[in-house]
């Protein structure tokens, strides 16, 4: 594949359409931006600030502006935050392709883009979550959000017990990427 890709890039460069150096710079910039992915910070703020939390669920893009996170990736992206409660557990998928809030969470994991996840999580979410090590009580409603349009979803996980004394930075460190997709929950001793 490397040589096929190189050949196409060379052809496009010869036609003046792209420049290889430009592409390399774009990769660098992207990788840098993913390190600043704002999902955990968003959740930590929602955990400590009930008014922010309410604004987040009402208009996630506005809430992101408040904490300085830009959702623009391919284009301006509309974000919706969905709330885990003691009655409801949310999980996100794109069954048709791989839509994912890259600007907020960083690059998506391969499993999220896999045929196995895309096909099964809408059909048997509890079994899928169990494979991820998450067992839900039978009475909890599972809500699966299939990202079929230009809206992107992020799960706001529940704040773990035993974290009352922690500041925002320490809380953010407990928020794993998988908890923002819905295939995990946050724990007081989890690593972000």
């Amino acid at each position: 594949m490397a040589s096929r890709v190189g050949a196409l890039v060379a052809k496009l460069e010869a036609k003046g359409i792209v420049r290889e150096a430009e592409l390399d710079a774009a990769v660098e910039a992207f990788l840098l931006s993913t390190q600043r992915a704002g999902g955990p910070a968003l959740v930590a703020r929602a955990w400590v600030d009930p008014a922010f939390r309410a604004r987040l669920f009402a208009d996630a893009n506005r809430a992101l502006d408040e904490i300085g996170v830009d959702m623009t990736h391919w284009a301006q992206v509309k974000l919706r935050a969905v709330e885990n409660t003691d009655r409801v557990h949310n999980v996100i998928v794109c069954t048709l392709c791989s839509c994912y809030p890259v600007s907020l969470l960083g690059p998506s994991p391969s499993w999220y883009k896999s045929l196995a996840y895309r096909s099964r999580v809408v059909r048997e979410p509890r079994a899928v979550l169990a494979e991820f090590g998450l067992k839900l009580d039978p009475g909890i409603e599972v809500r699966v959000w299939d990202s079929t349009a230009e809206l992107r979803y992020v799960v706001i996980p529940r704040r773990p017990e035993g974290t009352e004394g922690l500041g925002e930075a320490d809380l953010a460190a407990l928020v794993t990427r998988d908890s923002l997709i819905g295939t995990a929950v946050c724990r007081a001793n989890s690593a972000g």
Partner: protein
Amino acid sequence: MVFLYGRWRFARAGASLPIVPTTHDVGGASEFGPIVREAGEPPFHHEWEARVFALNRRLLQLGLYNLDEFRFAIERMPADAYLTSSYYEKWFLAIERLLAEKGVVP
């Protein structure tokens, strides 16, 4: 040129081939097995994947094609290619197809 889509394998002379790509439409399918996860996975496993990522973004920015055309190009690939190609291989095949269809790269 005859493209093979899902169940449709033959073109009758004078008939236009219906394009109803379905291979990608996997919600609810049960044949794909366990979900394989890689701990500490990097964003790109190979340098060529990163280049494909950047190339696609650039070509979209330039307006050579739009995101919906890109998704449709992925959906239109032959079923066996779709099922066996890696994620960025699919991107590359779609980009190649779009550039050919639009006469940018012969």
